[in-house]
């Protein structure tokens, strides 16, 4: 299950979505708003998305994770809009029978999200606000190659 939300991410809801009696391992990754970037003090972040495409790309990542590992349940929630230091911007939860595949599938999901999902963050700093320079198209292509060689 994937979701974009403008509200704080509710971890109880997320974990309920991956509740599964056949899963012995649940890996939860949380991305948080950090107070620094490239040596600059950050006071907050603002996220925007190409929402229809972002949701489709998240669903694709879920499908790819399920093709590669015996995932029993997977949920990704990404928050949009303005956030403060310490707020959770993204949460990925993966439930598998065993922990090693849950760790691998969770890492895959967040790594793919970082290069494939059209979401952008703007850093709010004391000296103004600045778009964060994210993954370049070349990095996206590289991620595709890595994916192909891994499969």
């Amino acid at each position: 299950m994937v979701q974009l939300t403008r509200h704080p991410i509710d971890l109880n809801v997320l974990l309920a979505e991956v509740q599964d009696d056949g899963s012995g391992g649940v890996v939860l990754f949380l991305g948080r708003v950090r107070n620094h970037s490239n040596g600059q003090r950050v006071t907050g972040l603002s996220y925007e998305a190409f929402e229809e495409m972002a949701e489709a790309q998240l669903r694709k990542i879920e499908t790819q994770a399920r093709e590669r590992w015996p995932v029993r349940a997977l949920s990704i929630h990404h928050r949009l809009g303005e956030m403060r230091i310490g707020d959770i911007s993204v949460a990925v939860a993966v439930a598998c029978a065993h922990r090693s595949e849950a760790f691998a599938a969770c890492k895959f999901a967040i790594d793919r999200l970082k290069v494939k999902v059209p979401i952008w963050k703007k850093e709010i700093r004391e000296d103004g606000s600045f778009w964060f320079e994210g993954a370049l198209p070349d990095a996206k292509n590289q991620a595709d190659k890595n994916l192909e060689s891994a499969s």
Partner: protein
Amino acid sequence: MKVRVRFFAQLREMSGTERAEMEVPDGISARHLAHLVAEKFFGLGPLLARAGIAVNGEWTDEEIQLVAGDEVSFLPPVSGG
């Protein structure tokens, strides 16, 4: 033919618009469209050169041939997570 163009993040702010409609030669590539966009919207060139391209909501190669009515999105390097 007409194509629809969408801008996001820095490109949206720099162009001053989220959407534009452009009349372009039939069958041009997405890369060619990027050049026409850079001519129409002053100052976007350097960022367009680094941007990814999605046609009708799917990541695509810049050499793809466009058809009338395509929605072409120029996506600055993504930074979600």
